[in-house]
């Protein structure tokens, strides 16, 4: 089970000269919870889990002292590898692929677009890191991939609300520059 799914159609959702918001292709998502010695998990996952909150590696972001979000094209091998070490190294691995979608937010004023909904200082998120935060009332994970390029993971039912805000914001920011 648990193949990547989404009911939204990937593609551009809102765009202007200021910023473009599009929907990422469906992907596998796993919420990983563990503590103590992580070396067994690292070995099973074939990566070193980042341990500072907000830090990322290729497929994982550290969200809390015992919490990671994993993104992967195929989660089946990950689930199997983790299950294999569960007895000796208990943890929680939960499939949340169906829970959320990812918005790609990019463009010259992408960071400012985020300030319409995010109270925290966007500038304090370094490129290559990410943070869980709140955007217009919805909990999101914000990944910063470049100074002007972000990804935002949001639960399905909150996505239309945020998208509406970003549509308005894209137009507003473009009009401001005109």
């Amino acid at each position, binding site marked *: 089970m648990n193949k990547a799914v989404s009911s939204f159609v990937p593609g551009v959702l809102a765009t202007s000269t200021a910023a473009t918001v599009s929907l990422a292709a469906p992907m596998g998502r796993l919420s990983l919870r563990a503590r103590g010695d992580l070396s067994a998990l690292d070995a099973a996952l074939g990566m070193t889990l980042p341990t500072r*909150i907000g830090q990322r590696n290729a497929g994982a972001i550290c969200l*809390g*002292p015992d*919490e990671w979000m994993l993104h992967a094209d195929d989660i089946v091998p990950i689930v199997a590898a983790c299950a294999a070490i569960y007895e000796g190294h208990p943890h929680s691995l939960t499939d949340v692929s169906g829970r959320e979608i990812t918005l790609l937010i990019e463009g010259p004023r992408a960071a400012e677009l985020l300030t319409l909904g995010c*109270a925290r200082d966007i500038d304090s998120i370094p490129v290559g890191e990410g943070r*869980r*935060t709140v955007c217009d009332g919805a*909990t999101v994970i914000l990944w910063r991939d470049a100074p002007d390029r972000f990804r935002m993971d949001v639960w399905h039912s909150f996505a239309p609300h945020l998208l509406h805000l970003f549509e308005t914001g894209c137009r507003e920011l473009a009009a401001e520059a005109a």
Partner: protein
Amino acid sequence: MLLIHCPYCDETLPEAEFTYAGEAHIVRPLDPSAQTDEQWETFMFIRRNPKGPHYERWRHLHGCARYFNAVRDTVTDKFLTTYKAGEPRPDLESLK
């Protein structure tokens, strides 16, 4: 809106990411059934409500999701410190 330092994230962030969770250092008895009515009443309902420094709990709900402790002055609304759950209650003198 307050700024709150999360001791787990080690960042000072807007209050919008946090929720308040009442007075801190109120430990649930290990064996509640052994508690007298008076003891249980104290645990359940009696709070300090001080004017001044207050030991209290917050949760970084929209962040690391951790509960942590804080000392906030209820007069100035300033946080004197925040610290991880389970850490000892800091001495007020050391915060001045």
